[in-house]
């Protein structure tokens, strides 16, 4: 969208929509980082604060939907504008869902903080960084219309899936070792699953970027995903 609209008000609406999405994306990234920080550093207060942030994300979803509907009704957008607005409507669903998943992580963190640590969580921040970067890059790619970057995000999802599979196996050994580990291991397994889901949402975002820029739907085109063990 290099050129400006002849209609400045329409242009301003599209700029506003883009900004709203970025602010929402920024909040979500912050929630990912602080939910895992709360878990790793056993910081219940941070977990509570992070849960509170979710209201902003939910609110942003509603306001973005409103703005998109208003633009659709008033402007009858076509071509790249139409793709941008319909993708924005879908993008907020994934972003909002990431926010919810972060709340779930915080809830597990609060539960885990009641008990002694099961194992070192040294690998978690590294994984979180990858996932956070995936969301960040997907949004960057959306703003810049950079399909290359979007494709890289999609490619990185494999490492997230592999991480989940590995964590699952590890936690299984803790559970086999001692049944008293089961509840904590299950909590950590849930967190790992949540992180894996965020990776999937980031992949969705990246796929939307490709559609937004090229008008080409790359979803469900036979990409083999590493399936977690049953």
């Amino acid at each position, binding site marked *: 969208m290099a050129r400006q609209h002849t209609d400045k008000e329409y242009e301003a609406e599209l700029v506003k929509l883009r900004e709203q999405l970025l602010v929402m994306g920024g909040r979500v990234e912050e929630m990912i980082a602080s939910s895992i920080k709360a878990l790793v550093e056993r910081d219940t207060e941070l977990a509570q604060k992070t849960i509170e942030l979710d209201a902003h994300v939910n609110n942003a979803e509603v306001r973005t939907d409103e703005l998109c509907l208003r633009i659709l009704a008033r402007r009858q957008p*076509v*071509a790249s504008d139409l*793709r941008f607005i319909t993708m924005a409507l879908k993008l907020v669903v994934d972003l909002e869902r990431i926010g919810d998943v972060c709340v779930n992580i915080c809830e597990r963190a609060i539960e885990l903080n009641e008990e002694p640590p099961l194992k070192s969580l040294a690998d978690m921040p590294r994984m979180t960084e990858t996932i956070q970067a995936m969301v960040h890059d997907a949004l960057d790619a959306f703003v810049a219309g950079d399909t290359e970057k979007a494709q890289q995000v999609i490619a990185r999802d494999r490492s997230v899936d592999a991480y989940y599979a590995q964590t699952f196996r590890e936690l299984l050994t803790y559970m086999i070792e001692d049944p008293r580990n089961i509840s904590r291991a299950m909590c950590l397994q849930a967190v790992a699953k949540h992180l894996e889901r965020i990776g999937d949402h980031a992949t969705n975002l990246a796929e939307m970027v490709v559609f937004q820029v090229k008008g080409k739907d790359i979803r469900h085109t036979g990409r083999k995903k590493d399936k977690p063990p049953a």
Partner: protein
Amino acid sequence: MNDSNPPPVTEKMRAEDVHAWFGPTHALKGVTMSVPDKQVTAIIGPSGCGKSTFVRCLNRMHEVVPGARVEGKVLLDGQNIYGSRVNPVRVRRHVGMVFQKPNPFPTMSIRDNVLAGLRPNGQKVDDPASVVETALKHAALWDEAKDVLDRSGSSLSGGQQQRLCIARALALEPEVLLMDEPCSALDPIATARIEELIHEISDRYTIVIVTHNMQQAARVADTTAFFYQGEIVEVGETDQIFTRPKNQKTEDYITGRFG
């Protein structure tokens, strides 16, 4: 014409390297495009892009303007309508036209308006009542007009007058119907009725519609062509043109980022 599974449609008309001039002004600069049979083809583009001139070349209406001339070929069912032995009046019977402003003959009754094209020199028409009824039904005006056939055409509303003009064109049983901005003088309801009518008759007629209203093109047309400065920039399936145009100029024009 486009790469996404084109349906097996036959070509009703084909323009080949058509040039048109108004005096010294070169209005069409080598347009080549095909018009699929029994489909709706929309032509969009900014004022002065040559879209009206183009459709007027499709039934030899351009050359009636003083100083205007045409070069190139226009094929109707494979026959060049600019061939030396072709009678332009006969071409116009096969390729009818509806204009921007409804133009019923004001002194004629509704009935006589419908029959006007069939008896330009006062000839007799076989079973005129049935011709009038069929044409008005096809133009979705029968229910409103059947009891007032003797009234003047200008007693109708603007939307009804336009449908009367469509009935007048359809009475000649053309194969192709050219519509040059048929709704630009109508309100949204009358516009919706004309669009519905276009949809209904498109299984019997090949329709080419020129419109400034891009949403209208998106609604009614199977194929859309974008004209700019006397040339075709892009032509393709309407869905493709309005969701993922290939040409940046098309993108800029339809999204409102022009000039």
